């Protein structure tokens, strides 16, 4: 699998305390990585750094083998990487407007936007919600809109921060199905969760954040405390 993004020597301190101390992190094409770790281990911070929403204290980053400055990398990240918050934010407008938001920023013609939005609504099974205000939706519906809004931009990497936390089993199942479909469409996915067993079936690699460092764990070692292989 081709490597898309590589971080070397990634360090991040928060309030004077070293939170992340990662020697190497590589993200490959068509991969689905489970990122586990206890609450407060730094999973969200790591995803936000990968998304370009937070700046690391130090890191050498290469995109498709080319070392880039942080500023140039951020520009690339914002067109190729999408980060979904634990509770995705939907703008105070219709579901259609929310899904079209990214395409409008890319300056696509209105006719193309309209057809792509229709297709995305069908994909997520939310065509019946298209005219509803996004703030009036349930948690599960919001998650589906957020997935459709991300997918429509054809990201190369999708970062999901605890995507199924506080969801009922039906919404959880819908989210898993959408993650699986995105994976089949070739999107590289990193799913962060403090409950690895809930996402293990979706992923083909398991990284665990422990004391700021990434450990590669076998997928079958649920909870992953037994067999620790240093990553990178």
């Amino acid at each position, binding site marked *: 699998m081709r490597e898309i993004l590589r971080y070397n020597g990634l360090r991040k301190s928060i309030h004077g305390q070293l939170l992340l101390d990662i020697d190497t992190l590589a993200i490959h094409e068509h991969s689905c990585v489970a990122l586990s770790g206890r609450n407060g281990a730094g999973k969200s911070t790591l995803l936000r750094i990968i998304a370009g929403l937070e700046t690391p204290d130090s890191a050498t980053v290469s995109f498709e083998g080319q070392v880039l400055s942080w500023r140039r990398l951020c520009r690339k990240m*914002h067109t190729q990487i999408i980060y979904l*918050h634990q509770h995705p934010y939907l*703008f105070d407008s219709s579901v259609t407007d929310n899904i079209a938001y990214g395409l409008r920023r890319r300056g696509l013609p209105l006719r193309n936007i309209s057809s792509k939005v229709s297709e995305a609504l069908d994909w997520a099974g939310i065509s019946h919600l298209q005219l509803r205000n996004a703030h009036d939706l349930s948690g599960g519906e919001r998650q589906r809109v957020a997935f459709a809004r991300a997918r429509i931009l054809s990201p190369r990497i999708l970062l999901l921060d605890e995507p199924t936390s506080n969801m009922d089993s039906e919404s959880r199942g819908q989210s898993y199905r959408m993650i699986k479909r995105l994976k089949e469409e070739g999107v590289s996915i990193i799913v962060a969760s403090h409950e690895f067993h809930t996402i293990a079936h979706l992923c083909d690699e398991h990284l665990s954040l422990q004391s700021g460092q990434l450990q590669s764990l076998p997928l079958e070692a649920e909870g992953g405390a037994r067999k620790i292989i240093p990553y990178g």
Partner: protein
Amino acid sequence: MDSLSAASADSFRLLFSGDPALWIIIFTSFSVSVKAILFAAPLAFVVAFMMAHLRYPGRRAMIAGFSALQSIPAVVVGLTVYLVFSRSGPLGDLKLLFTQTSMAIGQFLLSLPLLIALSHAAFQAADRRVWETSVTLGATPGRAFITLVHEIRFGLIAALIAGFGRIIAEVGCSMMVGGNILGYTRNIPTAIALETSKGEFAQAIALGMVLLTLALILNGLLAFFSGRGMMTS
């Protein structure tokens, strides 16, 4: 009592007969205050956004400073603008004293701290995910700012209404830098002050009714937009 009733009856006649002198005063008031707010609002929003979202030295001092400046008396702003634009002042050559422009500048300065403080509260309360979601979906910082403004629009509209309410009714600054010139810089509050001092109550009451109606409408709108702040599910 009779003279007061007669003055009130006259005031209605003036208002509804379309008395040009009265309506010029009303128009001047609105024209000056709307210009002041239109110039102050974008600057206030950008400064408030920076104070709420960026980390830089002196940020807290700025917040405290603008908060303190909200209570600056209108006559002090008027005096400052007067001294700056008076013939011997640093900008005296511009000959702006006793013009609508100097009144708008005074009102701009008067409304700015209030607009910044109130819009800062709105930006501070905004959900950080709005900005991050916009950026991760490919918005430029400028576009993400517009999205953020849209998301907190009710708080910002409330700030605008409060700022407009502050300047449309102020007397001190307008009187000092405008000079209360009939048909040019005489606005509602300065006209009320003048007519009352002359004992001409009809026009003062008519203008008072306009100002009172406006105040009620503005406060109604303020309550309406503030009340929009429902808990989100």
